[in-house]
């Protein structure tokens, strides 16, 4: 009983245990500015995961986030010189639009979201390549300062990325726990049949969830573009699976309904620490993926709440 109730805390506990573990190997890891650094590096991944959380929360999945983020870096890099600040909302809008389209396709044609989003990902990638002219683009330093300054550099000791990500987390948490949309997402994830017979327009809110995911993917793209002061069609490569892993390890199962954005923050940090630990524990190059794989299995085995999932597929 208590063990089951305790389970809600397993993600955070796993994180704490990991940090302590690495810390005892190499105390310099525990230096506050270092931990802060660690956090700021994972922000782009986290923001993407944040979006994906909403989709997984309703029991679907979004594989287009990575391509959307890459596309955004390209769009921003090429748009900023022309339209300046407007590029930022534009990018977010495009992201949200793309997400909504994925949702719409899935809902209307009843294609599993796994495939629908995979397909839209391909489309996004093509657009990115076309817009970029298949080159790496760079944003002029001054432009970057003036339009993307909000997402890099520090305020005092704190990296702005952390502040931005933190703000997004707060907003997402409010959306999840304090808004009608959040409540309905939870209802859909926990019991779609019940939600339908309660007269909820499930399809509409599913599309909304995908739109949010798209917008946040675009957001992570923006932050990436700011960090790289440029963009390329492959800028966000290797983001997707870690992002999904972050969501799942955080304790939001693929079946949806439980967990949420705060869990995802923990999950993202777990991923970050795991990666950093490879440097700190000086895991040999060949061993790193094996290490990551094993940590993954252990982490998920610890954090998943089996009561919520009847048959584990």
């Amino acid at each position, binding site marked *: 009983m208590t063990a089951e109730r305790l389970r809600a805390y397993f993600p955070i506990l796993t994180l704490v245990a990991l940090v302590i573990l690495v810390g005892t190997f190499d105390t310099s890891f525990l230096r506050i500015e270092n931990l802060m650094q660690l956090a700021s590096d994972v922000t782009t991944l986290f923001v993407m995961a944040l979006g994906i959380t909403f989709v997984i929360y309703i029991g679907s999945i979004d594989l287009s986030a990575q391509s959307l983020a890459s596309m955004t870096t390209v769009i921003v890099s090429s748009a900023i010189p022309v339209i300046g600040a407007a590029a930022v909302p534009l990018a977010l809008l495009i992201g949200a639009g793309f997400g909504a389209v994925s949702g719409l396709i899935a809902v209307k044609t009843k294609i599993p979201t796994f495939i629908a989003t995979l397909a839209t990902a391909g489309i996004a990638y093509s657009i990115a390549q076309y817009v970029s002219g298949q080159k790496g683009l760079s944003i002029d330093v001054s432009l970057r300062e003036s339009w993307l300054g909000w997402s890099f550099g520090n305020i005092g000791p704190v990296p702005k990325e952390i502040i931005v990500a933190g703000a997004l987390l707060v907003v997402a948490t409010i959306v999840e726990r304090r808004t*009608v949309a959040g409540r309905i997402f939870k209802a859909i*994830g926990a*019991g779609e049949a019940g939600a339908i*017979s309660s*007269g909820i*327009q499930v399809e509409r809110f599913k599309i909304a969830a995908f739109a949010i995911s798209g917008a946040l993917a675009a957001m992570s793209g923006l932050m990436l573009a700011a960090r790289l002061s440029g963009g390329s069609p492959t800028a966000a490569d290797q983001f997707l699976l870690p992002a999904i892993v972050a969501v799942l390890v955080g304790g939001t199962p693929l079946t949806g309904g439980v967990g949420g954005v705060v869990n995802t923050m923990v999950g993202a940090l777990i991923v970050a620490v795991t990666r950093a630990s490879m440097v700190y524990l000086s895991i040999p190059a060949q061993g790193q993926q094996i290490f990551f794989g094993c940590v993954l299995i252990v982490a998920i085995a610890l954090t998943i709440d089996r009561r919520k999932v009847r048959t584990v597929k």
Partner: protein
Amino acid sequence: MLELKEVDKSFPGVHALKKVNFNIAHGEIVGLVGENGAGKSTLMKLLYGQYQHDRGEIIVNGKSVRFENPRQATELGIGMVFQEQSLIGNLSVMENIFLGQEHAFVRAGIVNWRAMANAARKQLAKVMLDIDPKRTAETLSFVQRQMVELAKVLTLEERVKGDLVILLDEPTSVLSRSEVNLLFSLIRNLRSRASFVFVSHRLDEVLEISDRLYIMKDGEVVDILKSSEAVVESIQHKMVGRLINREFYRESKQEPFNPNLRLLRAQDMSLTGHYEKISFDLHAGEVLALVGTDGSGREEIMRSAFGLEPLTSGDISTGEDEITKHTAAESVRLHMGYVPRERKIEGIISGLNIFENMTLGNIKHYSRWGFLCISSERALAAEWIKKLSIKTPSEFADCGNLSGGNQQKVVLAKWRIAGSRVILLDHPTRGLDIGAKEDVYDMVREMCADGCGILLIADTLEEAIGLSHTIMVIKDGRVKKTFDCAIGKPTLYDLVHHMV
């Protein structure tokens, strides 16, 4: 050969079987009748090893046994034909028949389909079903599925030495008369080998086929009699048991409804394969009961009315305005509320707590600019918890952990909160204990008093009679008869007479 002694079984909130004694001799056909919730299905599932009994003992061929799972029961020659379909849709008929026993047909790792097909044909021949055993189950009609299930059970003949006991749970509810005859001749032919327990709502059929008759009521065996001596009316009275306590259904609180205020009108609703040309009006303060056997189409009628099932023709309107798009969302917008039979799946959402469930019906009303007013939600929930005396630690409790009765109260509260004018109750008291039932009845009356109209599919006939102003008897998807209770309430017999 099979005997139950003082068997007791209870579920949270329900005492399903009370000291039941039951026995069946070799080659005997025993009828088992009783209203829904009388404990028939529980008894069957005990015999089949799906449930385990709490007290008492089950004796097979003189040995006391305790089945941990259906497989053990099967090995002792006890098989069950389920009321709800238990075939796997994407598998072929023969695979369904021999699921779990394929190894009998394997040579050197290769499944010999021809052999299995032949064996399957043999089984199908037993039930006079002439279909290609290679057909996938989902392409079969309801009737065919029912027969295949029977055929699947009859594999016991080959598999098990010695006597068999075959449990038939409502096997005839979806069958036509001719098919019923077939089934019966089949059963008679098998008597040499097997004894049967036959559960059905159709009393005439039970009397026709069975040697002895067990009548159950509220988890107890109230009478055992020889079919040859039994008369339908007497049985019905025994099924109903105690003289209907009028107060049980709060009949003193039953007010005449307002015929001038129509809340819902159905005109010639039809859904191919389920029901045809159904028309009715529902007025403020009226309880309209749809009465019929399972599979008579009454559930579909209700689900169509709420927009969960489509309409092939006909139309529905609330008060003045026509319902154009048939979706649950639209119905709720037009102040309809549905209390489904599948409470755990469609009624409450487990994983959401009480107030989250309660306000789901008109969540917008408990939010400002899309932001929830959780404090007011909680206040509201607390209020309803007190009002309906819902047993729960707090309004934060997960609805999945509540007892059936309390879950039902939450669902009802949801629609009351949503301000629904038309309430569709599908087996509202299924599986509830007496106290919870009475609470539900109170709410029904209360809702009528508030000018709601209620479309009811009652759990028992007496419940239908007790609660309703109007009763429509549905048979094979058509309205067989309509009773206006204002003139005088029909007796159970009147209803059963038209139902079967």
